[in-house]
Structures are given as structure tokens and as C-alpha cells.
């Protein structure tokens, strides 16, 4: 705080931005709530106006695949919360990752990627992107030096989940950002598990932040959505690695995105080229649904984290539990790093091993009633899944091992129900999980 009254910035803070950023009622018929612009396209004033919009001479909307006023509110709101310059919303988290990679890379390029990722993301990097000529070297998230060693001449970026799915391994984001920047490439971080309430990766060196908004950001589990947020600090012109950003680009009428748009160049290219050519646009209805969730983001995240820490304590003391992984546990290998990167809470994802292995895990999952068995995380309701048989089931045994998965692992996304009700439900699950063993031991 300044000791002189009035000399601190009065820009709005997190909770206020969660409710207001990106929207001006007086430009929308005074509507207090963000309107849902359920339209495909927008009238041009005249041919000159149309040409100006297509040439990026003016800001505005042309066609809802490229941009939409409701979606734009969401984009600005998330950019403001993350401390980013700009954002581009997409139809899902996966499409956000794909679009970010395709904006950054060309055939023949290479990425260094953390091995601890959501199964779908692993498959994108391991199997799908090579079809576009983009190859990946996977590195364990704790092997910080490994990221440096894996960088090649044609490497265009480093990608990882800040907290790995589902094992809760944490990337040393500040150090890996330095490795990326020393090599003249950006760091892209999927921060879905954290939301900007728990961590703003841009403040720790990330250049591009990606979210599946479907999860904690929305919270209600009703709508698919993703987003790419640009930090604005990365200097695309520092080397010749990114010619489609820095040179007159045939893909967009000879435009040099970096020269014209500087700290928002990546987003401008992702929208102008990526949305135009791939088209994974977010519907205005889903954007509006996500905005309703973001309004209460900090309130929900506090409760998620509070419940998660209580569940960690409960699981650590339970006879049916073999191990518990959560960054709040003092002997978690990344506990100190988590305390530095996640000061507002360590998140609500817990991985634990159930005694009795796969059979016990299946019995547990089949017998909890309050917790929902489904392939999502970050709902306000408590969710459970057995990754080896569901989210990561398309991996072979070796890939499962490399991804740090075991057959006894249960992935728990702690909701914001009454904590006693969650514990009581888990007791039912554990009781059922013990029964097969009792039978087999007799």
C-alpha cells in the first residue's frame, strides 16, 4: 500500500472482475445481465464497413464462428482474471489445446510436453498431431532438466498441465518458463484444475494459458467450453522461429500479426486463421452458462479447497486407503512448490489408492451414491472415476505406467456438498470395497 492516499491503482480486483469484466450495460440496452446474442451473423453498415471488418481495420463481429458478442464478454472476463491481454473461447478444452498448437506450429515442428496429462490430451500429442507433421517429446513433469534436454532446433513450445492429471504432479512452472524463454519459445500451460483463483500462470512465466471452462470455471457441469488466454509478454520477433506470426503471412492477406498486434498477436492469429479454418466456436448459450459460473468462482473455489483438505485428512486416516496424493499433504513431493504456486488453495483433485486393487476400486465406484461416477472433474458435485478403466483406458500398459497411473487409483473431484455427507457416502463405498476381499480370504 502506498502511504499517500489515492496513489494506489483503482483497477477492479478479482471478485469484481468475475462479475463485471468485459461487459458494459449501457451499450446493451441497459440490460444488467449479459444478453445472449443468439445469431449467426451481423449487419454491415455498408460495403466499406464490411471490407473494414474483414481487413481487421475495425473491431467488430462478422460471423459467430469467428466472434460473438456474448462469447466476447466471456473472453474478456477470463483474460482479465488471468492477467492476460486477450482470450479466445472455443467449444471445448480439447479444441482450445488443438487450436493453440495449430496457431503455434507447422508441419515439421516439435513440442516438449509433460507426460502427466488428461488421457485425451496425451492421445492428441502422441497420435493425432503427428498426422499433421507435429511431433512431441514427453518429459515427466518433475524432470525440469529433462524439458531443457528435450528441446530441439525445431521445437516451438513447451506444454504441460500445471498439476498433472490424475496424479497431482506439479510442473516447476517458473523454472520451465525460464528454460522455454532461454530457448526463445513460449510456455503453454493447461491450468484447468487451478482456475485463476488458485493460480495465474502468466504471473509465473507462462505465455499461453488454456482452460477447459467446462470444469471449475463453469462449475455447474452443464456446458462444454474451452479458452486460450494470451499473456502478451512473449516476443515473437526475437528469432525466426515463428514466421507465420512475424512475416507477412499469406494465410491472412499478407498481415504480420506480431507487428500489427504485438501483445495480442497470438489471439488475433488464433481467431483470424484458426477459427476461420477449423471453426471450433463456442455457442453463445454455453458462453452465457459459463459466465453464470464464473460470477461465483472465488466463493466456490474456497469451498472446493476447504472440502478437499478435509477429505485428504479423512482418507489419510482410513484403513481402506493405501495412499493419498494431494499437494496439501506435507510429504507430497511437490508440497513446497504447491505452497508457492497455489497460495489460495491446492485444488480439489485428489488421487488415492484403494486397498484391494482394481476389484476394490470397482466395488467402491459402484457403491457410492452421492458421488457421481462420470468422466468429468470440477463440478460443484463430488465426482469419482477409476482412470485405468475410463479416462485413460485407451492407453496401453506401458503408457499407463509412464503416465503414472496404477490400477488401484481412484480420481476424486471434491464437490461443495456438506463434508459429512461426502464422508458418509465414501464409508458406504469402502464398506462394499472390503467385502470382495473378505469373501476371497475365506
Amino acid at each position, binding site marked *: 500500500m*502506498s502511504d*499517500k492516499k489515492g*496513489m*494506489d*491503482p*483503482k*483497477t*477492479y480486483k478479482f471478485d469484481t472482475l468475475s462479475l*463485471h*469484466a*468485459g*461487459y*458494459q450495460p*449501457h*451499450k446493451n440496452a441497459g440490460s444488467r445481465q449479459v444478453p445472449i446474442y443468439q445469431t449467426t451473423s451481423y449487419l454491415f453498415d455498408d460495403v466499406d464497413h464490411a*471490407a*473494414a471488418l474483414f*481487413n*481487421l*481495420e*475495425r*473491431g*467488430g*463481429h462478422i460471423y459467430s464462428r469467428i*466472434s*460473438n*458478442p456474448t*462469447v*466476447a464478454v466471456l*473472453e*474478456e*472476463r477470463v*483474460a*482479465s482474471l488471468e*492477467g*492476460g*491481454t*486477450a*482470450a*479466445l*473461447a472455443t467449444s471445448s478444452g480439447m479444441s482450445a489445446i488443438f487450436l493453440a498448437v495449430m496457431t503455434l506450429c507447422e508441419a515439421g515442428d516439435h513440442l516438449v510436453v509433460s507426460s502427466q496429462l488428461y488421457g485425451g490430451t496425451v492421445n492428441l500429442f502422441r497420435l493425432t498431431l503427428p498426422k499433421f507433421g507435429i511431433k512431441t517429446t514427453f518429459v515427466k513433469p518433475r524432470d525440469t532438466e529433462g524439458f531443457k534436454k528435450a528441446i530441439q532446433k525445431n521445437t516451438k513450445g513447451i506444454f504441460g498441465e500445471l498439476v498433472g492429471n490424475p496424479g497431482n504432479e506439479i510442473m516447476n512452472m517458473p523454472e520451465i518458463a525460464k528454460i522455454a524463454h532461454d530457448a526463445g519459445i513460449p510456455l503453454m500451460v493447461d491450468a484447468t484444475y487451478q482456475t485463476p483463483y488458485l493460480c495465474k500462470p502468466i504471473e509465473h512465466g507462462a505465455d499461453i494459458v488454456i482452460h477447459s471452462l467446462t470444469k471449475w470455471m463453469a462449475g455447474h457441469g452443464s456446458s462444454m467450453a474451452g479458452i486460450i488466454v494470451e499473456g*502478451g*509478454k512473449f516476443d515473437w*520477433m526475437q528469432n525466426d522461429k515463428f514466421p507465420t506470426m512475424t512475416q507477412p503471412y499469406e494465410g491472412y*492477406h*499478407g*498481415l*504480420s500479426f506480431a*507487428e*500489427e*498486434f*504485438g*501483445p*495480442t498477436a497470438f*489471439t*488475433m492469429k488464433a*481467431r483470424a486463421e484458426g477459427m476461420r479454418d477449423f471453426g471450433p466456436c463456442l455457442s453463445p448459450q454455453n458462453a452465457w452458462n459459463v459466465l453464470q459460473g464464473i460470477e461465483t468462482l472465488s466463493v466456490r473455489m474456497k469451498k472446493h479447497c476447504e472440502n478437499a483438505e478435509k477429505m485428504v485428512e479423512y482418507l489419510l486416516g482410513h484403513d481402506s486407503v493405501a495412499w493419498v496424493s494431494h499437494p496439501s499433504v506435507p510429504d507430497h513431493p511437490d508440497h513446497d512448490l504447491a505452497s508457492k504456486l497455489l497460495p489460495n488453495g491446492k485444488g480439489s483433485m485428489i488421487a488415492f489408492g484403494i486397498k484391494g486393487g482394481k476389484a476394490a476400486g470397482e466395488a467402491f465406484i459402484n457403491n457410492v451414491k452421492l458421488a457421481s461416477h462420470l468422466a468429468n472433474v470440477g463440478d460443484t458435485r463430488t465426482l469419482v472415476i477409476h482412470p485405468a478403466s475410463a479416462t485413460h483406458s485407451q492407453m496401453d500398459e506401458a503408457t499407463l505406467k509412464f503416465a503414472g497411473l496404477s490400477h488401484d487409483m481412484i480420481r476424486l473431484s471434491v464437490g461443495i456438498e456438506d463434508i459429512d455427507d461426502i464422508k458418509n457416502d465414501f464409508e458406504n463405498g469402502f464398506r462394499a470395497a472390503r467385502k470382495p476381499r473378505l469373501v476371497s480370504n475365506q
Partner: protein
Amino acid sequence: MKFQVNNNEVYASTGGRPFDKNKPLIIFVHGSGLTHMTWVLQTRYFAFHGYSVLALDMPGHGLSGGESLKSIEDMADWVSDVIDAVGYKEASLVGHSQGCLVTVECTARNPDKIKTLSLMGGAGAIPMNPELLSLAENNDPKAVELMMDWAHGPAGHFGGHPVPGLYHINTGSMLAKTRTIKNTLGVDFRACDNYKNGFEAAKQIKIPTLSILATDDKMCPVKEGKKLANLIEGSQIDIIDNCGHMMLLEEADRVLNVLKKFITTNYPAN
């Protein structure tokens, strides 16, 4: 494009079109600590409609070489040198904030060279808050945060950028941090604070002049802008409601429409 002025490399955006010496020239001069990118929602239009455009990075700013110039008078002479360096005998000038001081002084010094003058968020003098000046000269990022706070009106603080997905305050902040704060913002603020000739320079201007002012501009309030404009013979004033000092982004369309009408009328394309 890049070219040399006084043995230093200069970067200027040409608005996405090749620089064409056969077209009339419009030069855009940015405000304190900022870069050519503040003008993106004005320059591209003119570049695609019959003009050659140079949105300058002032020396030591953005992608330009050299060191930041220490006085408004030096900056005014440098803008005149730019016109010579690109092979023109005349140009139309557009300035924002500090860029208004520069373009007013440049016009007064070069009455035959400058054909129209457009001022956005301008005033005859921009005395700096001493604490803000000290923060900038001491390389404190808080100087940028304060500038972004004061530079945006209440509406701009909420966002609502004309380009979908862009967030005003963080984008402006990043532009102001492109180079070392004390070497750009610090030097610029001191130059603004030291400059005392704005009102005298304005009295000498006899060319068509437009002042675009904004009701919520805390940095160069409407009354200060009017004081300057009223000293310029025949000057036009346009006042934008619900808008702060960063009018060229906060109300980019309105600004472009007013600017387009003024320039195409008074300095028509071929």
C-alpha cells in the same frame, strides 16, 4: 517498415499495406511510454483507403532503436525529420496525449509542412503528478498500473474492447512494459512535465485542426483540451461521452469515424 532517422533505426507500422510514396502521408504519434500498436484501429483503415500511413515507434520505444528523446521540442523536430527521411515534403499529423504536445509543437515549427492536425486527449500542457513521475523514473511497474487506471474511463475499466476478446487495461499495460519503464515512460513523463510552450505553439497554428476529447478523461480533461483547441483558429472539437483518455481504443469506432471525416475532407486521398 524500418528506416533510418539521424543514424538510428526507426520502426513504423504502415497499417498492413506497403508504403507508397505516391499517396498522401498520415503520421500517428503515440502517447507516453506506448508504441505504434495503440493506433491499430485507426491506421489500418487509412492504409486501405488511399493513404500512406506511418504509426511511429518513437526513439527508444517499441521496435525503434536509439534512446528516448528528452524533450517535446526534440520529439517535434524528430517527427519533422521522419517526414524528410521517407521522402515527403508534407504530411498530416495525428497525436494522442503526449503525441498531441509533439504534433502541436511540430506543426508550429513547420507551418508549411503539416497540412492537418488531429489531437486526441490533448492539452496545452501535461503537468505530471510528482509521485507518478517519481515511480516511472524509478522503474516502478506501479507507474504503469496507475497510468492504466487513470487513462481508462469508468466504462473502459469494465472492458468491452471493440476487438472481440481483447482486454483494454492488460493490453495497454503490456504495451507500456515493452521496454524498460524508466527509459520510456520515465523519460516521456519528464518531457511532458517540462514542456511549457504548448499554448504559444497553438496560437501559431493556422491549418485545419481537430480535437477529440472525452468526458471521463482524467489525464487531459475536456476543459484543458478546449483551452488548447480554442487557441487554434477554426479548430473543430468532438467530445465523446462515457469515455476516458484511451479513446482511440475505448471508443475506436467513434474516433475513426470522426477522424475519417476530418482527414478525408481536409487532406483528401488521391
